[in-house]
């Protein structure tokens, strides 16, 4: 039998790998994938608590989080395409027009 702590540690590990990806990569698409990784690790936490407490609310929240992730992926990738059309690159270091 696997205790819930192990699920939580696994989920934290995935979350921090995603966080490192967001902070250290410069390719916008890979940064975006790291965000998906972090979203999924939180989903794992929610499902684990839902199963260990016998309450469906956690799984409902995962359902809605997936919907939001789908919407976010569509809009985010559209933004990346628009940026690529303007700059001819997906390098985040060159997206500095908001920097003063």
């Amino acid at each position, binding site marked *: *039998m696997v*205790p819930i702590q192990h699920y939580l540690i696994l989920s934290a590990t995935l979350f921090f790998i995603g966080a490192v990806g967001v902070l250290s990569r410069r390719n916008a698409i*890979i940064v975006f*994938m790291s965000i998906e990784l972090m979203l999924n690790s939180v989903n794992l936490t929610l499902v684990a608590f839902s199963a260990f407490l016998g309450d469906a609310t956690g799984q409902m929240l995962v359902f809605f989080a997936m919907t939001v992730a789908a919407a976010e992926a569509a809009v985010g990738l559209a933004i990346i395409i628009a940026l690529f059309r303007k700059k001819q690159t997906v390098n985040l270091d060159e997206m500095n027009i908001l920097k003063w």
Partner: protein
Amino acid sequence: MTLESVLFYVLGSVAVGSALLVVTRRNPVMSVLCLILNFFCLAGLYLTLRAQFIAVIQIIVYAGAIMVLFLFVIMLLNLGDERKLTDGLSWKKILTGGMAFALLAEVTVILTGYANPAVVPLSARAEEVGTVEFIGTQLFTKFQFPFEVTSLLLTAAIVGAVVLAKKKLD
């Protein structure tokens, strides 16, 4: 060791390994493929938690729909000279990794050290809660309003994506 714990540790280590590959690969297509593997492992982990519906949705929506979208965008942008985007090991990356590792160690210590060491078994209702029937009933009764709002959100996302990505006509 039961089959369940074997499955957990195998799937968990594959999930962590593929997540590391997602973050470290240079080629975005390789990253997408590793991320799909990661999603499949997570679906398996959901099954060890008796969440059948979420596991299936994970594969259909995430591994199916969202990752295909990613692949389409990578194909569309035709990122040829990917090498220029990656520099070597800079001090920033080492610092980021070190800080993330320190945080992870902290979380691990908190979860293993202070939590109640008694192993709590999976809830007896877990199998009932994870089924499509139960989730569907909840979705159309207790969570009716968020469900309807979700459709609004998806419509807004579709319109937003089209507006952002289409070519300017002028």
